């Protein structure tokens, strides 16, 4: 079986596990919905509708949702003692990283869809370029998981893991969060060139961290 095939297999296995016990996705969706509701209460309905504020809060919420979903995914592996078996297989470590990234990206796409629709409807955001926004969201959803999966793997089986993962992941995610927020703001405001250039940066970060993850993360899984 090729490397891509193994990655696909782990991703499908992961998504099946998520469908059987959807606690990760439920937690992430609930989390982002609560944040969207809190947003207009905390900053006020006028500020919450601002084309810069709403996307920024949305992407920060999505970053936390990624951490939540990834940690839940690895917790499930540890609870079932499934990690050792997977790692022992030939090419298992690469497949574990790649498969988790793909599966978390799919989960995150669902979370982003629900959170995005909630934001658009509840905050009544005037959306100028919907297709551009979709491109930014898709690339943002692809750019977040590689970093978070790397950091969750690094903190695996450590005490204070729940506190450590956000400390490690959020500073590394800053460029992706800035690009995703600015890209979404540009799409909402009708700036097509701005939206696409930020989307390009997101794509670049997704590729860079994807390659770094596939190259060095297998070494960290012991």
């Amino acid at each position, binding site marked *: 079986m090729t490397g891509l095939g193994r990655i696909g297999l782990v991703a499908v296995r992961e998504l099946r596990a998520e469908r059987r016990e959807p606690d990760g996705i439920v937690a992430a969706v609930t989390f982002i919905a609560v944040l969207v509701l809190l947003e207009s209460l905390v900053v006020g309905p006028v500020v919450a509708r601002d084309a810069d504020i709403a996307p920024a809060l949305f992407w920060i919420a999505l970053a936390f949702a990624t951490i939540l979903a990834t940690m839940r995914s690895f917790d499930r592996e540890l609870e079932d003692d499934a990690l050792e078996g997977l790692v022992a297989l030939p090419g298992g470590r690469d497949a574990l990283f790649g498969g988790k990234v793909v599966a978390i990206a799919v989960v995150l796409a669902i979370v982003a869809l629900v959170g995005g629709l909630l934001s658009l409807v509840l905050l009544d955001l005037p959306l100028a370029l919907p297709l551009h926004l979709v491109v930014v969201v898709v690339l943002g959803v692809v750019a977040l998981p590689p*970093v978070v999966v*790397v*950091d969750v793997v*690094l*903190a695996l089986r*450590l*005490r*204070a893991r729940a506190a*450590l993962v956000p*400390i*490690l992941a959020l*500073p*590394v995610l*800053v*460029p992706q969060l800035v690009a995703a927020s600015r890209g979404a703001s540009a799409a909402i405001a009708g700036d097509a060139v701005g939206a696409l250039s930020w989307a390009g940066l997101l794509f670049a970060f997704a590729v*860079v*961290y994807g390659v*770094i993850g596939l190259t*060095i*993360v297998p*070494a*960290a899984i*012991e």
Partner: protein
Amino acid sequence: MIETTFWRGSVPRVRPLLGTVAAASFVVASYMALVWAPTDAVQGDVYRILYVHVPLAWLAYLAFVIVFLASIGWLWTKRPVFDAIAVASAEIGVLFTGLFLVAGSIWAKPTWGVWWTWEPRLVTTAIMFVMYVGYLLLRGLSTDFSRRATRAAVFGIVAVIDVPIVHLSVLWANSLHQLPTVLRVAGSPALDTPMLVTLMVSLGAYTLIYAYFMSARVSLELARQGRLWTRT
């Protein structure tokens, strides 16, 4: 074996001399910065903090690049000396970044009117600081030597991407922070020769201080690793 002889034999012998040279060069650099260098036409004497702020920034970058290289060294060879170099450089890098932020803040108050402003260079530097505090935290929470070194090495490689982002943030975004005056894309340094000479002497002095700290901390870490191996 070679590195053990080097770090436990040659380095401790040379260290007192290195310390003396570093201290002497620091005194010379301070004299040049406070007395010899001319007063700036626009900022007056307050600009003299540049001779502390800029070398600290460059050395912080260097420290984190060394963490990156040592991390690759550990993952490639699994030689403990690389892990010792990485942790030593990360600790010194965090110290220098903290001092560089404080010095920048002290400079910002009289020139910008605020201790802190949310502009790209400051924010990305603060993020770099937090990132390497996280690196040290990750090390602190791992107990097994080999796993700790591997986890830290992976993070040391991932985190280095922030270093060019910090340096180039002033070029990429509309920034209150001044543009590079020495490493400029076009043209020679935008500094008077006496100012440039003083800056280079300061940079040399801080580099020697970094080298001294490194030699002491790496030897300490190797001794600590030796005790760990003996215990296990």
